[in-house]
């Protein structure tokens, strides 16, 4: 049985070390006016086990759609996505998903939410309790176990939402602009906590954001996407050491270099978006 205190689930790498392989994936939406709306075209992306990848792009570029395809919420219109060498067909229950809004189940308490994905088949009662209290503690929510989500602040809800996805230890976590609506301070604190958790657990994380600083600060690699229909424009390696200090990320060697490369690419996209 998994012991949360130890290094949690290894992201089972496939033979070549990639957990997720997006191969020439496209997504076309049918709009009510019958016109086809291309959301993604020809996406190729390989993600290694244990990697922290961020995806940036102008709004409406299909970043979230990419996550939805990996999670199996919707199917690719063309191309395919391999997850641990198997093609994603239907819901991919091996990923954890953190949506834009917290989307905690409002009728469950914090501890019930966090424990919701812990199936009785995989976790004994004792394991389950240990796992839940460990993650509640990790999220700084001790003392709030019996609270309902409506009674939490935005930041607390966010943290609970993140550990809900972590608690059942899926090898890959997909995060869709999880810190979007939060204020700058709360955001930084949560980024810091997320990195700390990740450094302990080393799951694979795919993190969508529209914030360039956030993208560089968190990632091993930043995927830059173009305006609709979304394509991958470039992938930037972030040469910063870990652990990183989120609060003084600007001073860390490597940040400027990565950020200005990202900005050069991104500026071009913004120009297109503006006209």
């Amino acid at each position, binding site marked *: 049985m998994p012991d949360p205190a130890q290094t949690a689930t290894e992201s089972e790498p496939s033979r070549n070390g990639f957990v997720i392989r997006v191969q020439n994936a496209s997504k076309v939406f049918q709009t009510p006016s019958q016109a086809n709306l291309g959301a993604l075209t020809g996406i190729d992306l390989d993600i290694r086990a244990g990697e922290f990848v961020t995806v940036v792009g102008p709004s409406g570029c299909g970043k979230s759609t990419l996550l939805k395809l990996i*999670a*199996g*919420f919707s199917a690719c219109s063309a191309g395919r996505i391999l997850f641990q060498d198997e093609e994603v067909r239907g*819901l*991919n*229950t091996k*990923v*954890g*998903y953190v*949506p834009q809004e917290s*989307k905690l*189940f*409002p*009728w*469950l308490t914090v501890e019930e939410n966090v424990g*919701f*994905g812990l*199936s009785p088949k995989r976790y004994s009662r004792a394991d389950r309790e240990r796992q839940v209290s460990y993650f509640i503690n990790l999220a700084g929510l001790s003392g709030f176990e019996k609270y*309902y*989500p*409506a*009674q939490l602040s935005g930041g607390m809800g966010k943290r609970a939402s993140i550990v809900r996805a972590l608690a*059942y230890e899926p090898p890959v976590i997909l995060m869709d602009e999880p810190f979007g609506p939060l204020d700058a301070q709360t955001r930084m604190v949560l980024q810091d906590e997320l990195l700390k958790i990740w450094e302990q657990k080393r799951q694979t994380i795919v993190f969508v954001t529209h914030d360039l600083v956030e993208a560089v600060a968190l990632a091993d690699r930043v995927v830059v996407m173009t305006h609709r229909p979304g394509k991958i424009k470039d992938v930037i390696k972030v040469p910063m050491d870990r652990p990183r200090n989120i609060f003084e990320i600007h001073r860390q060697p490597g940040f400027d270099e990565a950020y200005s490369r990202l900005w050069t690419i991104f500026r071009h996209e913004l120009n297109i978006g503006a006209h």
Partner: protein
Amino acid sequence: MPEEISQTRTQGTSSDTGAATAAKSPLTMRGVTVTLLRTAIVVGFFSLWEIASGRWIEPFLISSPSRIFSSMLTGFTDGDLLQHTWVTFIEIAIGFPIGAISGIALGYAFGRSKLLAEIFEPIIIALNGIPRTALAPLFIVWLGIGLWSKVGVVFLLTFFLNFFNTYTGMRQMDHEYVDLASLMGVKGWKLTFKVIFPAISPYVFTGIRTSIPFAVIGAIVGEFVAATEGVGFFIRMSAGIFKTADVFVGIIVLMIMVIIMDKFAAAIEKRALRWQTQTEHIQIQA
């Protein structure tokens, strides 16, 4: 600029409206005024009724509060009013739960199965177009003048309201909850009762509570058409022999029945929806 102020309070049930809250806080000036005025209106109405009866209007037309009160006492002590009430109660106690549960179950099934919904939706809507009380005589023909024809009418009136509310809930529900839970590997029984039903529970309770008065209407209509006992029978009989006071007694009994059932449902609803302690957004226009 509209400014948003969040304020947290336990959201009550639908009966917990602003007016009720004002009356529940008797310490404020406004609360006192509201309570006083309300009492004055009710007392005034009954006094006027009492005075008018026999002076300006024939008592057999409108009876009077004092006559109704004494009729009620005698009805319950040595009459068979208790028996009539019991009969009507049993009709509802059988028909209502069956109607509510099957309505909720079918609403859920329609929400889960697109195929089912596509096939049956027009049929259900057509059936809903029938004024259902008009079917009461048919039920008498099919099920006789006893208990079961009334149970049938109660079922019919309860079923559709619960079905439509639950089905609306299934369509309005935030599907991301179901997706997230499914992604977490949750399915079957747990998905249904830990995710879907809680998500639609506000709609389900609306269905249950709006159908309570209709369940009583169903029983009464059934008894009006053909019966040998029950409050509906009692009312019709009393009206036929101009015992107007007894008619009012029957009406009051029904009213109390509805109120008790609603209070009971409200208590369950409050308990089931206690997680709805939520932030209310109040718009203030500056």
